[in-house]
C-alpha cells in the first residue's frame, strides 16, 4: 500500500524534473509493486487453509488521536474481504496505469496526472485495508478528493472543473451522513474499530442499528452514486477516460458496496435498513438502465450502466447476500473497466469525439477495440459464459430467494426488467458506435498503441474467465473464500432455495431477448421515436433539473439574500445605526458649544448657584 504513496510523493514533488516517460513508468511500477505485495500476502495467508480465511489479521500502525474516552488507532486489517478488494484495486489499477501511458502520452502535464492517480491508489488501498472506521473514512474522503482532482484534471475546461466540484459536493453530502453514523456508533459502542464494531453491532438496540445502518448507507449512496445522490457520476465523465475506468467504474464507486460488506453484521441485523438498501438498489438499477437507453455520449451510457450495476450490488446486499454483491463487484470491475478502456480507445482514435451520433462503422478500423467492447457487452448483458452472467445470475437468485422468504419480490422484478434493458442499451451503444457506415468521413481512425491494447486484452480475458471465480461449475472459489468471513445470516432461519435451473434459464432468456431486441430496434442506427418518454429519459428523469431548481438555485439565492439585505442591511446596518445615533447625539450636543466664553461662564455660575442652593435648601 505504501508503494503508490511513494509514487505520489515523488511524482508530485519532483515529477516536473523527471522525464515524462519516467514519471509514468514509475507510477506503474509502484502500483504493480502493490499488486505483487497483495498477492504475496494472499499466498502467505492461503496455506493456512481456506477454512481459516475468516481470520482477520490486524496490523496496528500508531495511535492517531485521542481525546477523553476516544482513542483512534491507525491500523490495517487483512482478511479475505480486504485482500480481494486490494487485489482488484491494484490489479485493475495497474492495467489502467499502463493504459494511461498510451492514452495520455500527448498530455503536457503528465507527472501531475500520475501523481493524482497514485494518490488515488493509495487512498483506495487505505480504504479497503483500513482497520478502523475513521481510517476508512480518511480513505473514503481522500478517494473523493482524488476523484475531484482527476475529473477536473483538464481544469481549463469549465465543464470539467464544474463536474469535479459537483462530484465532491455530492459526495460530501453522503459523507456528512456517514460521519453522523460514525458518531452514533461511537457513542453506543465507544469504539470505531471495525472488528469491535462487528462484534458489538448485533447487541445494539434495534433502532440504533437501523439508524446507524441507514446513515452509513446514505454515505454509501453518495460514493456509489445511488439514488438520490447519483447525479455526479455521469458528469464525472469529463475526466480523462482511464480515470473514468478506474475510479468511476471499477474501484471508487464500489466503496459503498464494500462498506456494507465490511460492516455486514451491522447491516444484516437491521432488516429495515436492509429493506431500504434493496429497494434503493433496485430502483437505481432500473432508473439508470432506462436513462442509458437515451444517452448519446458513449461514456455517459457507460456511466449510467455503472450506476445500474452498482444498484445490482446493493440489491444483493439487501437480499442478505453480500458475497454475491462482492462477486458482482469484482466481475463488474473487469468488464466495466474493459468497456471504458474501449471507449477511450475510440476517443483516442476519433480525436475525442464521443457523441455516438457522430460515430459509426468503427468495427473495421478498430478491430481489437471493437472485439474488446463486444466482449464487455456480452459480459454486462449476462450472457454465459462471460463473467457478468455468473455474478448477475447469483444476485437474481438471491433476490428471488428474498422474495420467497419475505414476500418482497420488488427487487427481483426490477432487477429482472433491468437485465433486459441492460442488454438492450448495451447493444444499442455497440451498434451505434461500431456498425454501419462511418459517420464522420473526415476522421481517420487509427488503432490504439500496444500500451493501450495489452491492458484491454488482459481485461477482456478476465471478463471472459472471471466468472469462474464464483461459478458453481468451478466450485465457487471466491464464495468459498469469502463466505466464512461475511454474510453470516444471523437468525434468518431456513432460506427457501428457489429452483436454480429455472431462474438461470429465465435470466439467460432475458439477456438474449435484450440483445436481439437491441439489434432489431437499432438496425438502422436510429432510435425509435418515443416522444415524451424519450425526452423524459434523455433529460434523465429531470432529476438534475429538479436539483438545480429546488436546491442549488434557492441555495444560491438564499446566500445572496443573506449576504446582501440581511448581513449588510440588517445586522451591519444595526451596528452602523448605533454609530449614527451616537454621532447625531454628538451633533446635537455641539450646538451648546457656541464659542462665547461668557455663556460658558454663565453656565458655570448657574450650575454653582443650583448646587449651592440645593445644599442650602436641603
Amino acid at each position, binding site marked *: 500500500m505504501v508503494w503508490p504513496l511513494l509514487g505520489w510523493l515523488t511524482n508530485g514533488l519532483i515529477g516536473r524534473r523527471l522525464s515524462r516517460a519516467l514519471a509514468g513508468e514509475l507510477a506503474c511500477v509502484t502500483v504493480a509493486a502493490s499488486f505483487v505485495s497483495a498477492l504475496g500476502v494472499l499466498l502467505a495467508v492461503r496455506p493456512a487453509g481456506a477454512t481459516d480465511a475468516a481470520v482477520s489479521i490486524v496490523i496496528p500502525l500508531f495511535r492517531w488521536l485521542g481525546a477523553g474516552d476516544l482513542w483512534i488507532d491507525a491500523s490495517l486489517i487483512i482478511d479475505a474481504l480486504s485482500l480481494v478488494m486490494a487485489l482488484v484495486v491494484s490489479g485493475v489499477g495497474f492495467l489502467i496505469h499502463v493504459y494511461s501511458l498510451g492514452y495520455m502520452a500527448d498530455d503536457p502535464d503528465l507527472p501531475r496526472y500520475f501523481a493524482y492517480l497514485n494518490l488515488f491508489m493509495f487512498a483506495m488501498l487505505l480504504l479497503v485495508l483500513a482497520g478502523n472506521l475513521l481510517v476508512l473514512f480518511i480513505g473514503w474522503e481522500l478517494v473523493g478528493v482524488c476523484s475531484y482532482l482527476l475529473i477536473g484534471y483538464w481544469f481549463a475546461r469549465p465543464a470539467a472543473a464544474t463536474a469535479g466540484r459537483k462530484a465532491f459536493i455530492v459526495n460530501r453530502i453522503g459523507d456528512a451522513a456517514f460521519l453522523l453514523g460514525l458518531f452514533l456508533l461511537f457513542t453506543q459502542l465507544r469504539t470505531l474499530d471495525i472488528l469491535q464494531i462487528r462484534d458489538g453491532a448485533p447487541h445494539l438496540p434495534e433502532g440504533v442499528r437501523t439508524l446507524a445502518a441507514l446513515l452509513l448507507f446514505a454515505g454509501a449512496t453518495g460514493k456509489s452514486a445511488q439514488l438520490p445522490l447519483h447525479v455526479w457520476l455521469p458528469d464525472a465523465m469529463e475526466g480523462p477516460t482511464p480515470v473514468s475506468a478506474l475510479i468511476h467504474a471499477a474501484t471508487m464507486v464500489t466503496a459503498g458496496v464494500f462498506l456494507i460488506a465490511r460492516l455486514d453484521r451491522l447491516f444484516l441485523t437491521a432488516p429495515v435498513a436492509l429493506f431500504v438498501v434493496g429497494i434503493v438498489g433496485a430502483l437505481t438499477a432500473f432508473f439508470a438502465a432506462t436513462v442509458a437507453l437515451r444517452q448519446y455520449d458513449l461514456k455517459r451510457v457507460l456511466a449510467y450502466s455503472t450506476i445500474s450495476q452498482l444498484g445490482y450490488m446493493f440489491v444483493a446486499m439487501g437480499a442478505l447476500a453480500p458475497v454475491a454483491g462482492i462477486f458482482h463487484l469484482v466481475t463488474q470491475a473487469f468488464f466495466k473497466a474493459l468497456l471504458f478502456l474501449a471507449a477511450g480507445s475510440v476517443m483516442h482514435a476519433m480525436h475525442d469525439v464521443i457523441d455516438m451520433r457522430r460515430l459509426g462503422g468503427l468495427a473495421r478500423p478498430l478491430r481489437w477495440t471493437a472485439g474488446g467492447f463486444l466482449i464487455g457487452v456480452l459480459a454486462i448483458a449476462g450472457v454465459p459464459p462471460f463473467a457478468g452472467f455468473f455474478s448477475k445470475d447469483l444476485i437474481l437468485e438471491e433476490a428471488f430467494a428474498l422474495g420467497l422468504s419475505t414476500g418482497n419480490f420488488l427487487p427481483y422484478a426490477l432487477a429482472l426488467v433491468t437485465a433486459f434493458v441492460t442488454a438492450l442499451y448495451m447493444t444499442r451503444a455497440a451498434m451505434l458506435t461500431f456498425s454501419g457506415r462511418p459517420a464522420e468521413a473526415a476522421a481517420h481512425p487509427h488503432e490504439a498503441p500496444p500500451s493501450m491494447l495489452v491492458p484491454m486484452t488482459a481485461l477482456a480475458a478476465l471478463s471472459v474467465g472471471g466468472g469462474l471465480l464464483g461459478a458453481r461449475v468451478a466450485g465457487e472459489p471466491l464464495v468459498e473464500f469469502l463466505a466464512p468471513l461475511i454474510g453470516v445470516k444471523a437468525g434468518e432461519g431456513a432460506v427457501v432455495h428457489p429452483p436454480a435451473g429455472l431462474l438461470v434459464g429465465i435470466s439467460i432468456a432475458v439477456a438474449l431477448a435484450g440483445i436481439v431486441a437491441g439489434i432489431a430496434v437499432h438496425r438502422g442506427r436510429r432510435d425509435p421515436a418515443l416522444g415524451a418518454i424519450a425526452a423524459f429519459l434523455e433529460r434523465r428523469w429531470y432529476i438534475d433539473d429538479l436539483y438545480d431548481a429546488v436546491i442549488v438555485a434557492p441555495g444560491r439565492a438564499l446566500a445572496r439574500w443573506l449576504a446582501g439585505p440581511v448581513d449588510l442591511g440588517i445586522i451591519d446596518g444595526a451596528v452602523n445605526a448605533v454609530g449614527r445615533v451616537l454621532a447625531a447625539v454628538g451633533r446635537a*450636543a*455641539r*450646538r*451648546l*458649544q457656541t*464659542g*462665547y*466664553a*461668557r455663556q460658558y461662564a*454663565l453656565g458655570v455660575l448657574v450650575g454653582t448657584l443650583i448646587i449651592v442652593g440645593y445644599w442650602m435648601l436641603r
Partner: protein
Amino acid sequence: MVPAPAYLALSAVLFTLGAVGVLVRRNALIIFMAVELMLNSVNLAFVTFARQHGSIDGQVAVFFVLVVAAVEVVVGLALIVDIFRSRETVDIDDVDLLRG
C-alpha cells in the same frame, strides 16, 4: 469695630460685581480684572471667617489664593497678549475656535 457681617456683605457685593463683570464684558482684560475681583472677594471672606473663629487656616488659604492668582495673571496675560498678536483683538466673542 466693624461687625463681621459687614465684611461678608462687602465680600458678596464684590463677588457679584466680579461675576456680572465676567458675564457682561467682552474685553478680555476687563474680564480678567473681574475674575481678580471675585478672587479677592473670596479672600476677604476667608480673612473675615479666620478672624471670627480665631483660626489661622483661612489666612493660609488666602496665601494660596494669592499665589494662584498671581500665577493665573501671568499665564492669562501671556495668553491674551498672544491672542492679541495673532488676532488683533481682545474681544472674547471673536475668539470662537472651539465653537461646535
